[in-house]
């Protein structure tokens, strides 16, 4: 058999639809024709594999990976950690997780960002890691600030961290954003509100995780990520998978 198991159908109701006029940029960037639905072949169940050795020792430490000698970024020091799971609740080990964010003032180190808040000379704003055998990941950073953007005349993004995640198959590929418990901008953000299901939005909001914090040093937030699950599949009368 060429492969072991295939992924379950993606439940589109938990995701934002493509066309969400309140988030204006989506209007001209959304397919209008129905998407073609493919069953899984090898092209879908396989995906790139990344090794730990491809990453540097500071890649998951945004407090240090761009800081000058002896310097440190301004802002609330935080740990973000969690587990990457599939739809069956199984850990997804050894996959690449990448993250990027604004600095504590809400400014991105990006040539296209011209917000008035200053660049932090000690903060790059990106990092990456791979999950361990139990699907866990963690990194240190500063809590990003909210920032204004041109959607409506007074639209603001809640504080957020962007996540890019690989699974074992290319069709598990996911980009999302993590928000912070208690942020009053979450319910009025046009990008958050592209997600129609309030329960689904809750799964993007990381709670404070005091138990994982470092006393007198760093607070912690927990953010678990769930990718599409695979299933046991009857191929040619043989049960494969699991």
């Amino acid at each position, binding site marked *: 058999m060429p492969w072991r198991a295939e992924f379950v159908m993606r439940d589109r109701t938990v995701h934002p639809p493509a066309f969400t006029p309140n988030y204006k940029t989506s209007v001209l960037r*959304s397919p209008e024709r129905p998407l073609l639905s493919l069953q899984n072949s090898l092209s879908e169940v396989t995906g790139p594999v990344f090794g730990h050795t491809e990453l540097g020792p500071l890649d998951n430490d945004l407090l240090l990976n761009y800081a000058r000698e002896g310097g440190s970024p301004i802002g609330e020091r935080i740990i973000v950690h969690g587990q990457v799971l599939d739809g069956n*609740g199984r850990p997804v080990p050894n996959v690449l997780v990448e993250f990027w964010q604004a600095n504590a003032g809400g400014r991105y180190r990006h040539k*296209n960002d011209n917000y008035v808040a200053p660049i932090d000379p000690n903060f*790059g704003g990106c990092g990456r890691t791979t999950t361990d055998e139990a699907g866990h990941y963690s990194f240190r950073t500063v809590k990003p600030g909210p920032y204004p953007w041109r959607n409506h005349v007074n639209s603001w993004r809640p504080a957020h961290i962007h996540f890019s995640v690989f699974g*074992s198959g290319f069709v598990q590929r996911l980009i999302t*954003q993590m928000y912070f418990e208690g942020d009053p901008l979450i319910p009025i953000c046009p990008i958050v509100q592209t997600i129609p299901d309030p329960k689904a939005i809750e799964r993007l909001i990381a709670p404070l995780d005091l138990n994982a914090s470092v006393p007198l040093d760093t607070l912690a937030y927990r953010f678990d990520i769930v990718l599409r699950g695979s299933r046991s599949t009857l*191929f040619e009368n043989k049960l494969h998978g699991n």
Partner: protein
Amino acid sequence: MVQSLNYFAETPSQTAGPYVHIGLIPHQAGFDIFEQNFTNELAAAGTRGERIRIEGTVFDGAGVPIRDALVEIWQANAAGKYNHPADRQEKATDETFRGWGRAGADFNTGIWFFETIKPGAVVGRSGRGTMAPHVNLWIVARGINIGLNTRMYFADEAEANAKDPVLNLIEDESRRSTLIAQRRSATARRSIPSISICVVSARRCSWTFDPKGRCRISAAPCFALLFTIHSRPR
């Protein structure tokens, strides 16, 4: 009441946003931070297969190039085998070739490109039939709420394309060509053969090739891609 099924719902997608480059290709955002970077060059010195350059533009519904798009590709090696443990086809592996890369659209022109090799044909679903050589694409950008997956096929594989199970899923035969690269003559700047393809996935949308071989999109809103593939001498 019935018993509950304890499946976990997938984490919702959110747009990659305008600053996706910071996280995935920081050099394009304007700084260098990692020692090793993931790039648009898939083929290494010893990689087997025909060298090709895939060059393209993602167009928005008004026909304007999306200049902040990020594209990833995933493909088999020249023998038609993916570098992944789930691929158990009895074919040659190529350890120099991961088969994956990412590229950002140029901030001025919207053009992105990959340096890679032409993939071989891969066995079809459930081990039946053969899929024509193809490259899998995944596109994210500001305004795209969930990443878009598509495939790119090659015009010089007409016989294989005619039997491809995915192309044949497209009910309207005239639209199958929107996933197939059309070979065109060498450009003035490059004395190498090249191919271009256009993928349009919107209604009320039509496309034509202009005299330079570039794809022009008319009628909005729609979502479209233009690929140009340059074969490169080894």
